[in-house]
């Protein structure tokens, strides 16, 4: 009799365990992407500042800004709009770059924020928020300065 009770209790605990594990698994599997625009920015810079920090010491900057799981730091960058283009994913790409800087900050917008990018004008001073994907560097194979890349960007209204 006692043994039966123990087995019964054991089965109930096991079922509860499986249900919880399943729920957690289901949640993790369907976990939404981080909402960059509704999260607070970790740092605020001008495009010149972040470019110069990367050109001075790329490894140190990568350690500071990139996250192991890819949810890297969210930056707010102020700069002059020097180019607006579109990528193969129909997203607007805004380049913020000072006239005398070697590289700039290339900010990719999203389906939801595209319109705010296309309303910008070349030469306009704006602030853009997005997640950093990679830093500025001189690539000797490309023979070019690569820009800081921000994604999931939007214009910040101050």
């Amino acid at each position, binding site marked *: 009799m006692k043994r039966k009770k123990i087995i019964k209790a054991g089965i109930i605990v096991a079922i509860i365990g499986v249900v919880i594990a399943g729920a957690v698994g289901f949640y993790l599997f369907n976990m939404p992407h981080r909402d960059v625009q509704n999260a607070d920015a970790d740092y605020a810079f001008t495009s010149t500042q972040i470019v110069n920090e990367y050109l001075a010491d790329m490894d140190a900057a990568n350690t500071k800004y990139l996250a192991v799981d890819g949810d890297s730091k969210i930056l707010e960058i102020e700069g002059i709009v020097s180019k607006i283009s579109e990528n193969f994913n129909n997203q607007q790409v805004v380049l913020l770059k000072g006239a005398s800087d070697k590289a700039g900050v290339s900010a990719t917008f999203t389906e939801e924020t595209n319109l705010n990018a296309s309303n910008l004008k070349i030469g306009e001073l704006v602030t853009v928020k997005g997640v950093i994907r990679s830093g500025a560097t001189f*690539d000797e194979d490309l023979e070019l300065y690569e820009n800081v890349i921000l994604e999931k960007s939007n214009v910040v209204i101050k």
Partner: protein
Amino acid sequence: MKKLSLLIAIVAFIVTSSAYGQKLVSSKSQIKFFSTTPAENIEANNYATVSTLDKETGAVIFSIPMQSFEFEKALMQKHYNSDKFLNTKEFPKAKLKGKITNINEIDFTKDGSYNANVEGDLTLKGVTKLISEKGTVVVKGNKVDVKSKFDLILADYGISFVKGKPASNIAKSVEVTVQVEY
């Protein structure tokens, strides 16, 4: 007469400047990873790659920001970035340093579709391997489009899974699709 000399000057300027512009820089790019197993299909896209193509030497360079690969599922993206998989914090960029070996067969002054053989060093997660793949170069006016599709063996770059979900859900060989507009 004055108009004519001005016209000659403009034409001369255009001709000389285009002769020097041998190195094309990408304006748009897409790199897609596709992995298929009986368990599931996994796809990731990258639109932030920078590439150059030298029309004279055939040198072709790709610099790929690894954290720019976007997955449908957030958890997959986290796994992909983590130090167990691509370790993108440690290795934020992948690079292809290659050459179109039959560049002489591609006439950049004539519209058309040309077959290209690309050979070069691909560095992924700090591991460099020689790859040799086929692609297509499409010339249309001032635009040059390069496309290629090839398979990549993950274990070649030290990315391997022996047990658990990754081993059953991620293909040993992933299909890579590349498209660049210069």
